[in-house]
């Protein structure tokens, strides 16, 4: 408005007439545009919130049952069944073996056959029912010498029927046995590994595999990523080579994860002959994927430290390494940590590279070492979604809830660290 073309005559200034219809229309348009923009933004937020709520609601709706198990009160007399193990052996490490050798599984099946002969006897119980009896006996050895009633998990079709989606036959069994049935938290889901029977399947094997994998990823990607970021920001000269490196790192951060899987397969398995399916190899592969994210986040955080801090430190006689480790790094750390945890969260949810290096196997026990064969949470979800048995549907959703909780915890830590160490200037 002020940029009127220069003219010989002095511009005539008239005060703006806010009441004129043209001006009023303009004002209305401005306000309308403002409102429209606000509504659009609000709409975008509510749309993504609705998707999130839908995802969480379906997962929790379907998966909540996965954390529950149906138990049946099984009257059992182990003294009459002649399961006889001396209490001293029971407490020792050979206790499990001794009970198995004494025919506990057969005794449990016989007790079920006697207690509910019309409903199929032992077929009512889960494959893992005798393990529950075994644990009860180990807790309370007096069970071996007296009749008792022990709650044991039921077979998967009866479990599914009680939760509302069974076949007519299993519905009939449920209604016949209802007074003996009860629901409870499935603790073995949190302590067991993969199994072929949904009532025995547990998430701990996959969770532990994921923890091991993340540990290796963090141990490798964090130091290498932070040191690279420090070098590139604080020491490297700016020339064609560092530009090339910067472009490569940015590219690497955007490469699809399956390519890192192929790389891991070619390098770690085929060239270095590391063990297939091991959490170690999974961690190394995911570290390659996470490193560029940490480098980029780290460089931005280091750039954000004001030069005055460096100048002041140098002015007081600090050496370059003292400047970096006493001043720049601590101030940049919140940003670096946030970037790291976002990178780790992405690595936690990654399936494709793990499939390539064989971390999709059925393994019936949790891993003990980094080199043991292991699966990871997202792969376990993928495997269970492909299982035949109906009971695995809710286990799949339950595993997704565990994965989401794990992610939520990691992101929570990121926010906490950011707020805890953030400095404003």
């Amino acid at each position: 408005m002020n940029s009127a073309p220069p003219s010989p005559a002095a511009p005539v200034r008239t005060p703006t007439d806010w009441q004129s219809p043209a001006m009023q229309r303009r004002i209305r348009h401005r306000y309308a545009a403002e409102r429209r923009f606000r509504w659009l933004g609000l709409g975008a937020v509510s749309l993504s919130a609705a998707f999130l709520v839908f995802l969480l609601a379906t997962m929790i709706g379907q998966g909540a049952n996965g954390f529950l198990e149906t138990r049946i009160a099984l009257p059992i007399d182990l003294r009459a069944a002649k399961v006889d193990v001396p209490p001293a052996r029971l407490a020792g490490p050979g206790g499990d073996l001794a009970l198995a050798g004494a025919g506990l599984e057969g005794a449990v099946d016989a007790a079920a056959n006697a207690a509910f002969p019309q409903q199929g006897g032992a077929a009512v119980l889960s494959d893992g029912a005798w393990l529950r009896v075994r644990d009860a006996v180990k807790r309370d050895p007096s069970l071996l010498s007296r009749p008792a009633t022990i709650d044991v998990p039921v077979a998967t079709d009866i479990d599914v029927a009680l939760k509302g989606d069974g076949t007519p036959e299993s519905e009939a069994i449920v209604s016949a046995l209802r007074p003996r049935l009860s629901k409870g938290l499935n603790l073995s889901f949190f302590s067991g590994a993969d199994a072929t029977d949904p009532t025995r399947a547990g998430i701990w094997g996959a969770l532990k595999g994921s923890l091991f994998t993340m540990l290796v990823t963090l141990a490798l990607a964090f130091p290498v990523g932070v040191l690279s970021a420090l070098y590139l920001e604080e020491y490297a000269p700016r020339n064609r080579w560092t530009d090339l490196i910067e472009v490569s790192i940015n590219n690497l951060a955007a490469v699809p994860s399956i390519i890192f899987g192929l790389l891991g397969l070619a390098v770690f398995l085929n060239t270095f002959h590391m063990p297939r399916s091991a959490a170690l190899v999974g961690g190394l592969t995911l570290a390659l994927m996470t490193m560029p994210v940490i480098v980029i986040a780290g460089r931005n955080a280091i750039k954000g430290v004001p030069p005055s801090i460096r100048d002041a430190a140098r002015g007081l006689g600090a050496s370059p390494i003292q400047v970096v480790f006493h001043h720049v790094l601590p101030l940049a750390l919140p940003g670096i940590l946030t970037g790291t945890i976002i990178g780790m969260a992405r690595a936690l949810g990654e399936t494709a590279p793990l499939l390539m290096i064989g971390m999709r196997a059925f393994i019936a026990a949790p891993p003990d070492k980094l080199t043991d064969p292991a699966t990871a949470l997202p792969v376990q979800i993928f495997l269970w979604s492909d299982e035949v048995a109906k009971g695995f549907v809710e286990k799949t959703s339950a595993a997704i809830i565990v994965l989401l909780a794990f992610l939520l915890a990691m992101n929570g830590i990121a926010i906490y660290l950011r707020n805890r160490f953030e400095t404003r200037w």
Partner: protein
Amino acid sequence: MSRWVLALAAMLPLGAAGCVDQAAGGGAGSREQIRAVGSSTVYPFTTIAAEQYLANNPQARPPVVESTGTGAGMKLFCAGIGAAHPDIEDASRRMKRNEYDICVRNGVDGVLEVQIGIDGIAFAEARNGPKMALTPADIYRALAAAPGGRRNTARTWRDVNPALPAVPIQVYGPPSTSGTRDALAELILATGCEAVDPAMKAVRDHSPDAFNARCLRVREDGAYIDAGENDNLIVQKLQSNPNALGIFGYGYLEENARAVDGVPIGGVAPTYDTIASGAYPGARPLYIYVKKAHLRAIPGLRAFLRQYAQAWDRGGPLVKRGLIAAPAAIQQRSAAIVAGEIALDPAELK
């Protein structure tokens, strides 16, 4: 502030520890656990055997069972002898002669071939579907890329056979890497092709390539829909689209009997008894292949095989999970192979 430096320093030995571990566990040294790869159809049965093996031998390391598909599994299995290569290959079809040759070239010569049972590839439709009844010839005319040497233009099942309803041809089935797909080609399409054109029988012997192109190639214009290795997904697709057919192993049909019905082929419905007796045309044997040289080297492999052999009877746990027990004569032969460690005679393979 310097505690962060300490924390950083503490991370480094962790990385170093990883390296030490890798030196101890990697390489071609020994391996404590059994490794199996291969067919997704045999995978559930091998996992049950693995679970039972672990229950009976609590001290043993858990076996590792990977589902890669028969073809990809054969590549891993035949890549060599030693700790880096799997001990067992799950196969939903017989090993091919050229696969055996690759095995031998890589030093894998003694291989035990153990038939564990039978599976049927079942055609299924939703319970509210059009109640189809097909013959291998119908399926060949509907799904082959070039039935009778001309490009396949059939859009509805009525185009194929006037007795069938006029619903569009939509078949969800396994991908070409799957053993189930090989079985579809071998058992249904080849039979249908020879029924449509008896001259193809002779062609099969003197020029197998021409036979493959004419008889076994599946059309790629959208009528046959590759649904990946996920058979649960096919069941869901059938429920949402009652006009479609699905192809999967008999175990899935049995498990989802409330949602889908088996489609009779040649007048025979896929049931346990028709598949076990061989009356159903889509019946196929399932195998595991074991490296003889690994029986000594891998602890527990012999015990694992014995465990497997005990589990495949009619009342056994594998049958409970959808396997169809092999006839008694074949079971005895398989048990003898396991007990006597008799290697496969390559002259039997095609």
